[in-house]
């Protein structure tokens, strides 16, 4: 079932947050942040997870990294289900999965020097010490395009793009197999975004990394990803090879997202192409989560949840109308 090439395989993963009310904190319901998602990432590939805010993409990533407890499901990393592992067993896995965070300002400890920030993972796992450690930090800094002379400086002395490079160096310190990139460029300036995206691509080639790349920007995801999955309110609504998905989007939500991207073509847009508003996770009906905004949904969609089905080879979507 597991072909050898698959590095990460997620099956029916659910992360529900209880809504607690009252004095006794009784659970009155759940926010289904991640609701039954399945996908797999072949080693060396980049898997793009796209969705708007509140779609559960960050929660999914943090659940996979075991930072948030999963409600149900299985996450196979290198063929081994990591969800039931205890903290002590998890430490080995933590070396192989690392995260690049969104906010380059809050993701680096402001009281630590760049050198000690990058050294932390190596120290925690007792991999290197002394001059060997410093040597490794210097190499890492140079790999991400910074000078080794910055080792003793502090995060606040760097710009956003440079800080993100430091975050990447820290993520690579333990030579991980899987790097989860959680919106790594969305907080950066336009001219810096492309630098970081190129850097991530170069590093992938150099260290044969596998990426789980999370973003809300479809054009960024298209550039970096091999496979793309679109999430909406905790579910994957469409999944396909990047080229296929962008050429032939099937799900109405994917189409909506693609049409909403402002194109750098100077002609006045007609305001008639309006887009229906988003609903929150709590307001969804019994049927298709996208029903409230869907231009083609009908009565049947409002009562039944469409399953994620293969509509063409390697192209799955969750819509009755396709």
């Amino acid at each position, binding site marked *: 079932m597991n072909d050898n090439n698959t590095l990460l395989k997620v099956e029916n993963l659910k992360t529900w947050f209880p809504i607690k009310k009252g004095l006794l904190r009784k659970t009155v319901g759940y926010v289904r942040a991640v609701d039954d998602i399945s996908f797999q990432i072949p080693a060396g590939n980049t898997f793009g997870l796209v969705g708007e805010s509140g779609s559960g993409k960050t929660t999914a990533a943090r659940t996979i990294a075991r930072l948030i407890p999963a409600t149900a499901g299985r996450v196979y990393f290198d063929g081994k289900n990591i969800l039931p592992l205890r903290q002590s067993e998890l430490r080995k896995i*933590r070396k192989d999965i690392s995260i690049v*965070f*969104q906010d380059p300002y809050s*993701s680096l400890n*402001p009281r*630590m020097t760049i050198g000690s920030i990058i050294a*932390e993972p190596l120290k925690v796992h007792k991999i290197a010490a002394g001059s060997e450690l410093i040597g490794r930090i210097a*190499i890492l800094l140079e790999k991400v395009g910074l000078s080794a002379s910055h080792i003793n400086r502090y995060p*606040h002395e760097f710009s956003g793009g440079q800080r993100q490079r430091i975050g990447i160096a820290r993520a690579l310190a333990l030579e991980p197999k899987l790097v989860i990139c959680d919106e790594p460029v969305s907080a950066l300036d336009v001219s810096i975004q492309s630098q970081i995206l190129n850097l991530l691509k170069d590093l992938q080639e150099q260290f044969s990394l596998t990426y789980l790349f999370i973003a809300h920007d479809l054009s960024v995801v298209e550039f970096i990803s091999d496979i793309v999955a679109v999430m909406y309110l905790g579910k994957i609504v469409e999944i396909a090879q990047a080229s296929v998905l962008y050429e032939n989007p099937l799900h109405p939500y994917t189409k909506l997202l693609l049409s909403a991207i402002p194109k750098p073509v100077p002609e006045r847009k007609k305001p008639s192409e309006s887009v229906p508003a988003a609903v929150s996770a709590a307001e969804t009906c019994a049927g298709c989560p996208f029903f409230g905004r869907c231009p083609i949904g009908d009565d049947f969609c409002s009562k039944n949840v469409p399953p994620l089905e293969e509509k063409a080879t390697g192209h799955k979507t969750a819509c009755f109308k396709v």
Partner: protein
Amino acid sequence: MNKTKEKNVPMIKGRSYWADSLRQLRKHKLAMYSLSIIVVYILVVMFIYLASWTKTDVSFLDWNQTVGKGYEKPNKQNVLGTDFLGRSVLRKTIYGARVSLTVAFWASIISMLIGVPLGAAAGYFRGFIDDIVVWIYTTLSSIPYILLILAFALVLRDKTLNLNWLGLDAISLSGISTVYLAIGLTSWVDICRLIRAETMKHKQREYILAALSYGCSNSRIIFRHLLPNVFHLIIISFSLRFVGFIQAEVILSFLGLGEKNSPSWGSMIDAARLDLPKGYWWEMTAATAAIFLISLALNIFGDALRDSLDPKLKVQ
């Protein structure tokens, strides 16, 4: 190969927040004057201890000596006058710094030692531990503060603390240690609350998530990542609450629960209270001025410290 590389690269020294803050603080003239006043007080107290350990007789520290008639007005010989036994008010005031500062120092240390770990643990682990800590401090803080200190002071007075289980000698509690124990044990609530709130805030930051993601243990996260980020709050609170502790000691001594065998500002005020209507104003004035000066200096310095240390108040 690594080694050669590392030697070739000229290291650029970074500017830490601490260095930045100190530079800013040094520019604050008033704060520097205040600091020098505080240092003078501390030096005086250290000198008193040094003299008593080495059994050196220093005449102006001999507060018990009769230097004149009773109730002598401030004059050339006795700059601040004398008390009812003819002892020098100046010497008493100087010697009084010992009790005040010792009490405030140990009370601060005790309240930090209780408040900081509890606050950090509650804020970091949340859940059950948080519930217990919050329960304890809300209970404590719902009792009127003075009454609580009084209760502790009365219970602890003239007791012997058996510390054998800690591998230490037994400590008999006498005046001064009763006072700082009572104050310290009752006043950790504020700092605990502060550290708890700040820890909770920092726990949400991505750098803590990052530390968790590469397998950092909880204790390492607390000590290496969280505490350095809230440490400035501990220092600020130390300097600002020091004043409160000095005053608490005065109140306790005034109420007769403080140190009895040597002068303190509180017992001086207590003694002078009855003399004041008779026109003997100097003892009261001297003690009050001593308190006022250190309180003012500590407040100004504490505020300046807060301005320079707190990154929230930094102008970008």
